[in-house]
């Protein structure tokens, strides 16, 4: 998909430039674009370094685990067909709390672990379960408390107030997530698929007592 989009932009640009006689402008634009790409990425370094440092403190202090635990009632409500003590719930909570802090790199492995656990509950391995679809809905709408990348870019281009979009981003992400949850609930009720019967786990573990993202490692 991304290959075609990229190709589309470049090919159409050259075709239109040829038709309008703007070829030298477009060539110049290609080099300018490359330069902007590097400038923007370099601008991200300061915020990324700072934010990931902060997040390591949060992680080591067990704050992410605390947040994950606080999400438990919501997760239980969103995933009614996952058994109460199933490890999948622990990974889902870690995934959501990492997303909240904008830690995409930590959220994805947790999300994949959650998918693998949900797959164990799946009677038909090639078809998604409602629980999987709910996890996807939450991840595609992704609530983030602080949009660090955007703040960095705005800062780079000399914004008078780079952080002023935090409030609007929170509101928009909240609406998007609410829409995802509503749509997911609607499809769930329409599908009326019987809840998957999980195999009884030997020595059931309680993943929610782990410590968030770093603690997630303990669950493996």
């Amino acid at each position, binding site marked *: 998909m991304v290959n075609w989009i990229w190709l589309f932009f470049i090919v159409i640009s050259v075709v239109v430039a040829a038709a309008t006689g703007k070829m030298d402008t477009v060539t110049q634009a290609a080099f300018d674009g490359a330069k902007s790409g590097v400038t923007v990425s370099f601008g991200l370094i300061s915020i990324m370094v700072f934010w990931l440092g902060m997040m390591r403190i949060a*992680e080591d202090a067990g704050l992410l685990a605390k947040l994950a635990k606080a999400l438990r009632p919501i997760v239980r409500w969103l995933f009614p067909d996952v058994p109460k003590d199933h490890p999948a719930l622990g990974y889902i909570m870690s995934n959501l709390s990492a997303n909240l802090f904008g830690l995409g790199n930590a959220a994805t492995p947790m999300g994949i672990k959650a998918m693998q656990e949900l797959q164990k509950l799946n009677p038909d391995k090639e078809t998604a379960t409602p629980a999987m679809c709910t996890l996807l809905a939450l991840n595609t709408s992704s609530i983030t408390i602080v949009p660090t990348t955007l703040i960095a870019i705005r800062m780079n281009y000399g914004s008078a107030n780079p952080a002023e979009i935090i409030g609007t981003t929170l509101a928009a992400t909240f609406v998007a997530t609410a829409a995802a949850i509503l749509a997911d609930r609607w499809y769930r009720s329409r599908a009326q698929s019987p809840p998957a019967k999980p195999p009884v786990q030997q020595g059931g573990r309680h993943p929610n007592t782990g410590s968030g993202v770093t603690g997630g490692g303990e669950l493996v």
Partner: protein
Amino acid sequence: MYELFSQLSVWMIPAIIVFIPLYAAVRRKQPVYETFVEGAKDGFGTAISIIPHLVGMMVAISMFRASGAMELMLSAVRPVFDWMGIPSEVLPLGLLRPLTGAGSLAYTADLIQTYGPDSMIGRIASTIQGSTDTTFYVLTVYFGAVAVRRTRYALKVGLFSDIVGFFAAIFICLYIFG
């Protein structure tokens, strides 16, 4: 309402960066500065690893704008968007957002560069980019990891939430910053 949103934006970061180290130091007796430095090391690599993606996408988008192709595409939808009071420049962002994370980030950076970060377009673009994730990427990675082929309604839910998020971002910005 504007006051509430601006206070939220003003206080969010200071609140986080005071609370986290304070909690870690007082309640957990952590060497907060050393922990900070340890975690911060990852930031450099993360930012640098974005360069190839961003260069590739910004070249394509920069060419698309300079050639006049962007204007050609936008002129087709402009009447409808004008009628709704939405700047049509953000439409390509709405189309790119679910498809490619690097592409939509590049387009956002391009809009901020062209119109300024504090313009309405710059604010709307920042809000759209920050408020949802790349639906197709998430679906590919998550379902790919467990080899699920029939994804049922997951894509529809993801795209529905993207559309709602897109218009929510626009109207919230128009209302708050308008």
